[in-house]
């Protein structure tokens, strides 16, 4: 639900996504519309096969809707070229993957630095060094920055992934089941860390999960089932959008 006076940072308008499996067309998302506000901590929840990852992929511009429109920061992403999509992903979006997806040959510091090296704009090295060191400090890996991903625990790897997602100072960070490959205690720590950063630097976080405990931390919950939104509410609102405090 959209609050009055707020400009949505992301808006989905009747987005559908079909996959072709052999000769059969399988609808993964069947016409979804919602808006997300800047600085929100958003959970896309639902069981497996509900379309969480597909929606996240379309918001992350790594998958294209079969129909409908994805609008990010007021700009329609329909019809953008591969080059424009790449630039958009680099400048506006950050990704946290379920399997961490760190570059195996780079150490912690280099993995975090990596997205900066892909940019066209030249930033003085000292400036970005301080920023990377700050992020490493934020995710608590100050003593691990020279280590390779295979020398880290799952939780540590996901912390690196969070820092990497934030390094280009994106307005949106997308996390696909960021706690799925972690034990529950580590998962909670990761969500707490994301929430902390969300508060501190006001980055919009959108994460998919099927863990009810994590869902409850979100400011905005979008619940899916069978490719359709069955619940779209802000924390403290009921399913109809009315404030629970009222």
């Amino acid at each position, binding site marked *: 639900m959209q609050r009055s006076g707020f400009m949505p940072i992301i808006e989905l308008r009747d987005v559908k996504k079909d996959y072709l499996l052999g000769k059969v067309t399988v609808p993964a998302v069947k016409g979804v519309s919602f808006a997300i506000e800047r600085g929100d901590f958003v959970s896309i929840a639902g069981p497996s096969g509900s379309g969480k*990852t597909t929606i*996240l*992929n379309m918001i*992350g511009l*790594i*998958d294209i809707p079969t129909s409908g429109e994805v609008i990010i920061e007021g700009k329609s992403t329909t019809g953008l070229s*591969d*080059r424009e999509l*790449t*630039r958009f*992903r*680099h*400048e506006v979006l*950050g*990704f946290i*993957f*379920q*399997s961490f*997806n760190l*570059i*195996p*040959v*780079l150490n912690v510091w280099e993995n975090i630095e*990596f*997205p900066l*090296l*892909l*940019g066209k704009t030249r930033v003085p090295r000292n400036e970005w060094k301080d920023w990377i060191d700050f992020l490493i400090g934020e995710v608590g890996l100050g003593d691990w920055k020279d280590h390779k991903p295979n020398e880290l625990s799952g939780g540590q790897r996901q912390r690196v992934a969070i820092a*990497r*997602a934030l390094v*280009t100072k994106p307005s949106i960070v997308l996390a*696909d089941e960021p706690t799925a490959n972690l034990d529950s205690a580590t998962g909670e720590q990761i969500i707490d860390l994301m929430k902390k950063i969300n508060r501190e630097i006001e980055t919009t976080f959108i994460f998919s999960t099927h863990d009810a405990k994590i869902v409850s931390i979100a400011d905005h919950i979008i619940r899916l089932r069978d490719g359709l939104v069955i619940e779209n509410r802000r924390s403290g609102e009921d399913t109809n959008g009315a404030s629970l405090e009222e």
Partner: protein
Amino acid sequence: MNMAVIFRMAFRNIREHASKSLIVGTLLALGAMILVTGIAFINASEAGIRATFSDVYTGDVFISGISTEGPVSLFGVTSPGGLAATPTIPEYPKVLEIVRSMPHIAGHSSLATGFGTIVRGDEAPPPGAKKSSVKPQDRFLFLFGIDPATYWNLFSEVEVIEGDRLKPGVQGLMISQTQLRNFSDWLGRPLGIGDRILVQGFSSFGMRLRELPIVGIYRLKEQGTAPEQMAYIDIESLRVMSGMTIGANEAITLRPEETQMLSMDNADALFEEDVVVQQSASGSIDVNAIAEAISKSAQPEVLKADEGAWQFIVAKTDSPRNAKRTIAALNAEFTRQGLAVTAGDWQKAAGPYGQSVDVVRIVFAAAIIILSIVAIIIIMNTFVISVIERTSEIGTMRAIGAGKGFIRGLFASEALTLSLVSASIGSVFGVILSAVLRAMRIEATNQFFLVLFGGRYMNPIVRPANIVFAIAAMVAVGFLAHLYPVTVALRIQPVRAMQEE
């Protein structure tokens, strides 16, 4: 994108995927080693063949007349029918003067060549002599009609082991030991210095007989580069036998009835009644008279040799390095003076025999091309496997903002780094292998190895340019092999990053 970062990642990826890198690297290193060693053999072959040909009979510079029938070498004109006459050098004194005026010419000699075969005269094989096993080609002679006054100074590699060298004004033949053995066998009598043998010369002007004494038996210091049938002959005899005689190619005036016979398009008409053929009074063919006439045809007074006729001038330069420059200068001068003469190098002089270097080179190039194609396919497949294994990694890079150019650059730098390192290592091994082979002094056991080694011993010569070439070629192979895998990598969509590894 910082290229240093791409190369750093490329280098680490090579290390990370050690087994695949090892397969690709070994292939590339092996390729470089084969290239370095192979080219070292070609160098040796080329240098050895050039030196031996040049020292034995071609010189560094070869001057001949021009034939419209085909290229001219010391072995005549290579023409489709094989019957074209070897042209003599027109305006020989003028050409000789030009040759002498060249600053780098250290020595020169004029010569003419022809073909002949040993024949029996009226001598019959001794009674009870067993039939000779000598084949017709072993009686064949490449006759080098030389100017002894200058020739032996130019070609000191010809060693006389019995008798004497041909001297100015002396008629005769200098043959090899093999020829002496074959001719003795075929004639059924032992031959030696001073013995006379009947040589039948043949050319486009017909056949001529000449009886000549054997004046010397020779041996080449470096065997295997000159044809085994080579024999030296005095120029006068050669000119007669090769038809280089005054009037040999003059126009023949036919009587009217002869012209009429030639114009008959029906051969049967020759036997019609109105064609009158005069017979001798006796009505029989005088065989003795024909034999006498043939015998007389071999006499110099019957067919006067054209004393000024030379087919070739061979020359040596003060350094082989100056040969090319001198040839160019000579050709420029010949053109300027409007002379139908051309200068070429030792390979042109040696004709079909000099092409052995090209044959070695072509065979080697073909082998390298086949090896390269095989290597490219193996390397390509290995790279494709690597790309498939790294699908998620590539998808992740694409998802977090890496453009296609970055992915292309990453794989290109991996291929180039691996190729460069492997080819460099392979080249070092190639240099070591060449040095070891050189130190082993392996001796050539047959004609093929003589050509391949460029001399009696295996002596591969490695030059810096060859190492650079080998490395560049292997880098090119590596680069070509990575092109298809890169297209596979570029087809990986960013969404693949989301899929579980």
